[in-house]
């Protein structure tokens, strides 16, 4: 996956793919490729969110233990 990729960029691309699908701009030849790309991006975003969740939990655990 692209190293430069950020959550925002990934999410934007997911939205583009979703919109293109909804408005039936995607032809069948592209469909598998686009679906796979979208799935990869979704995976990427979910991983990011999971990492952030873990970091947040750590941050707040530290904070609580300090109080």
């Amino acid at each position, binding site marked *: 996956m692209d190293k430069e990729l950020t*959550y925002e960029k990934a*999410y934007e691309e*997911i*939205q583009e*793919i*979703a919109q293109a*699908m*909804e408005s*039936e701009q*995607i032809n*069948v030849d592209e*469909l598998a490729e*686009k*679906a796979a790309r*979208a*799935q990869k991006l*979704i995976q990427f*975003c*979910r991983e990011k*969110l999971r990492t*952030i*969740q873990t970091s*947040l939990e750590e941050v*707040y655990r530290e*904070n609580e233990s300090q*109080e």
Partner: protein
Amino acid sequence: MERISLFQLNTFIKRALALNFNNAVWVTAEIAQVSNSRGHIYLELVEKSLDTQAVIAKARGNIWKSTASQLEQKLGPLFKDILQEGTEILFSTKVTFHELYGISLQIDHIDPAFTMGKLEMERQETINYLQTHGKLHKNGQYSLPPVIQHIAVLSSATAAGYGDFKAHLLQNEYGYQIQWDLFPVAVQGTQVTQEIITALNSIQNKANPYDAVVIIRGGGSKLDLAAFDDKDLCVAIADFTQPIIVGIGHERDQSIADLVAHTALKTPTAVADFILYHNLQFEEKILQWGQQIQTQAEAWIREKTDLTNRLTIQLKWASQSLLTSKVNQINLAADNIQRNAWLTLKNSDKDLTIFEKQIAAAHPQNILKRGYALIRNEEGSILDFEKINLHQSINIELIDGIVKTTVQEKQKNG
């Protein structure tokens, strides 16, 4: 001409005096000089002109040893105080004349009330003068620094009062270190004013001013204290531009120096206490400020800690909810994409099925099934009417067989 000898003359004067000064007389005079010899006291008595202060009368006086001890018993320490140069006295005397020593006043009684009253009058005059010239509270307008650390002490170096003062400052229980410079001055007698004024002048000219000037002396009688009622001295104290603290050893009475000084205390020890207490007050104030700062800082820290804790909780909730909304967004997008992908696939499949059906429906076999027939010649299917010629041999193809026939007739539609 009758002649008499000097001795005869003096004898005559002696007799004449004795006749006229039968009784003792009460006389007022100022003591110009005092001397003491083998218990006898010799005085030089003068009267000065009120205007010019020039001596206008002079006489020798004496108090014999026996009279002196009687008077001392009667008057106590006052006796010695009264017999000072510059004191005005009222005394009763017998005027005697001795052929050899001439006239002399044999003092047998001294009225202390006269001297005290005279002093009191002078005192009152001095106070009035100081009051009308705005000097009574003049020195009091200068303020002492918050901490008294460096002082000038005007005292007799050998006075007991100075010793007490020193000991008190050195042995203070708070551990304060107070530095002082001693300016030795007379604290009784006629030199007091001059010496104190000289000392004050040299203090005034110092580059580094003292925190305070202290004038002290040990206890003394009321007349001893009179030096501190002197007008010039009191004016010098009043006009001095640094605070002057006096402790000139007396319990009941107040000298005029006490009235003009910045602070007046009863004894040298009391002055030392005053200085120590003054510094103690500063220390207490500092401690109090420290306490206040601590209390306020603690309150401040508590307040900020609470605020930070609240913010942390807020932040925790906000970030959690943001994350949750992002997760929901992604899930939604994922669902959406999956659904749409399946949908697109399904629709394409459906389209294909329709085409398949349509294509299947268009197959010649299927058309033939429905009762249609195909016309062919050697070249293939004939779709054009004009391409069929009369008597031409053609094949009519049905679903289940081919009929070979010849064209008999052509008739075009329309």
